Each structure stands twice: as C-alpha cells, then as structure tokens.
C-alpha cells in the first residue's frame, strides 16, 4: 500500500484549448471572458472610516470591494477563476487615486497578475465602452517570466439563434518574455 501511495491519483485539473494568437514581436495574445450574468462567485464591499485616521470600517460607503469570478476562454468555456480588488491608494503626492488589481488563475496552466493603470489613457478600442488598460505584472506556471499589457472592456454579444444578449467583461492580454 505504501508503494501504491506513490501512484495515488491526486486531484488534477482538466485543460481546455487555449485561444492564443501569436504576435509580431514574438509575444502572444489571449482573451479571457467573464459572463456578468453567471460568473460571479463571491463579492464583498467595505467602507473606509475617515476619522481619526483613514481606516477600514465593516459598514459604510462602498469604497473598497473584492470579487471572484469564473473566467472563460475564447470558446466561452470556464477555464479558471479571477480575483479582483478595487479601492483607493495614495499617489506620489499623497492624493487618493483608484487602483484595480486582478489575479487570473487557470489551474492547469498558471496565473497572471494584472495592475490597472492609475491614469487611464485613451481607449485602444474605440467601439467598446468603459475600456481600461494596465500592465501584466507577473505570472507563474506557463505564464512565468512573462509581462505585458492588458485591456479590460465590457462587451455585449448576441446569440444569432435565440436573439439573447450576453454581457461580458473581456480581459485581453498581450504578453511576451521579459527578455524580449
């Protein structure tokens, strides 16, 4: 039985096809989707008490929030989980500015850490509403040693058969090796 323990089937993770596109600079583009009607797993909001010093309060205004979503590949199949935290942080002058951080975890492949930029430049994709962008800070597993950029946008898709509309958060990543 001890020998059998060596080949005991510990839990694994099914891997699905990845919709990766090669880019001209040697990097790769990959899109992840969150179905806003079905994919939120957990969410929590908290406030900030301003007196005597800025500190958290369990109740209060919703100035800090965290959510967990399922994430989907380009075929809209669930491939992992995403965590998002949003709140205010001080800039270099001490003024509060919004910050948004993501972790995308695809258990069969690895994780990516995303950091939205504090100053939002113009949209890369003009036809999409509420576009944000930021940096791919780090990764592990298959994503180890990669960094790059990402674009976040809310999109609507219509099913041609049923006519039903689905709203998604699109997280479009473009990553390349740190050495390039």
């Amino acid at each position, binding site marked *: 039985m001890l020998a059998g*323990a060596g080949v005991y089937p510990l839990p694994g993770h099914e*891997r699905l096809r990845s919709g990766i596109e090669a880019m001209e600079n040697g990097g790769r583009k990959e899109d992840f989707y969150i179905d806003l009607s079905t994919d939120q797993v957990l969410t929590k909001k908290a406030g900030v008490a301003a007196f005597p010093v800025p500190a958290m309060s369990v109740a209060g205004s919703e100035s800090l929030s965290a959510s967990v979503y399922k994430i989907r590949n380009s075929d809209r*199949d669930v491939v992992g989980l995403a965590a998002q935290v949003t709140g205010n942080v001080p800039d270099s002058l001490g003024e509060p500015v919004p910050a948004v951080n993501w972790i995308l975890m695809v258990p069969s492949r690895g994780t990516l850490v995303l950091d939205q930029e504090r100053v939002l430049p113009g949209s890369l994709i003009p036809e999409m509403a509420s576009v944000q962008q930021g940096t791919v800070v780090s990764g*592990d597993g298959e994503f180890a040693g990669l960094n790059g950029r990402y674009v976040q946008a809310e999109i609507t898709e219509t099913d041609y058969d049923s006519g039903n509309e689905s709203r998604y958060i699109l997280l479009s990543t473009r990553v390349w090796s740190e050495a390039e």
Partner: protein
Amino acid sequence: MRALTVIAGLLSGALVAVLLLALNPFAGGDREAPGTSAYSFVSNDVAGMRRGAFGVLNLSLLADTPPDFHEPTIENSYAAITMLRDAQGGPAGLGVKLASADSGGNLLTGDVGLKTYWLVFWPNQGSIHARGYESLWPVVSDSLLSAVFGGPLAARNESYEMSVVDADKEGVWKGLSGIYYDDAGYMTTVITGPGIDNDIFQGELELQPY
C-alpha cells in the same frame, strides 16, 4: 472460517498500511514562520473544493456535500474573500485568496498541497499580491489516523501551519500599488479548522518584508 480469517488478515494489513502512511517517515518539509505583521481572518465567503482530506485525496464525491464547482477545469480549486484584522481586532484590509490543488504532488512523500494566491488591499495605503504553497500533509496524516481509529476522515486539531517557505515552493509577496509599490517579502499562513467546517475560512496571514 478460512474466508473470515483471510478477510480479517486483509483488513488488518490495510489498517497497518494506512497507519504507516499516516506516520510516513518520508513525508515532511522545511517550514518556518517568519511573519512579523500578522492578520487574523474569519470568513464564510468561501466557495470551491473541500479543503480537508476529502478534497486533497480526490474523494470529494464521497463527501456529504457536493462540490461547489462542477467544471472539471476548476473543481479542485477554491476561492475566499475575507476581512483582515490587526492585532487589536480592528478591520485593516481586504484579502482575496485563490487556491488550486497541486497536481504535481506525491502521496508517498507527503507532497500534497495547494498552490495559493492572494490579493490584499489596505484602503488608502496600497495593495500587494502573494503566492505560496500550503502543505496539507499534516491535515491528511491526521485525518488518516482519525479514520484508522474509527473516526471520520477529518482533521482533529484546531489549527495547522501549512505554508511552506523554501527555495522551491516559496511563499512571497510583492507590492502592487500605493505605499507598498515595489516592496516585497515573505508570506506564511495558518489555517484554522480545515476539514472541520468547509464553509468557514479562518486563520492568520503573516507578512514580513525581506
């Protein structure tokens, strides 16, 4: 009578084998707790795989409650959101944890655990991300011992320090924004009550700068 003797022999052998596995001399790992900033947390905002022996030994189908995630890509993963409290018990920050079973482990060597990822946000201060590895071997061996002696397949102790900080499975954090931008350090976690109540996520998170 002969058949009964054979069955009794087989059962005794299996019990001894489980006992040997639970007390496996090959299992173990380097563990240290370097934390200086400790935050406690208790949350029922948790979803996903069973975090005790049933989940780690791939026996979730035998558990009394079905798994939260039915997709085979994430069924062995879990997520939790929790308020982090400082030493005085006051709310200090908000933490989100994602974890997935480490599919590269080996039960014989006690190498069973979870890959873990955290986002922690302190309001008006900054945020960090952390990654680590939680060895669930203490939980598994204790659960096996419990089962050998006629109890449930569940951990009996109230808490287990599960973080592993070593060269291969480092527990590290790195600053993302605000005053923590570009800071970095070590992370350890103590999880309280794994396998006792799967709906409660409870323990301590310790962060120390390099």
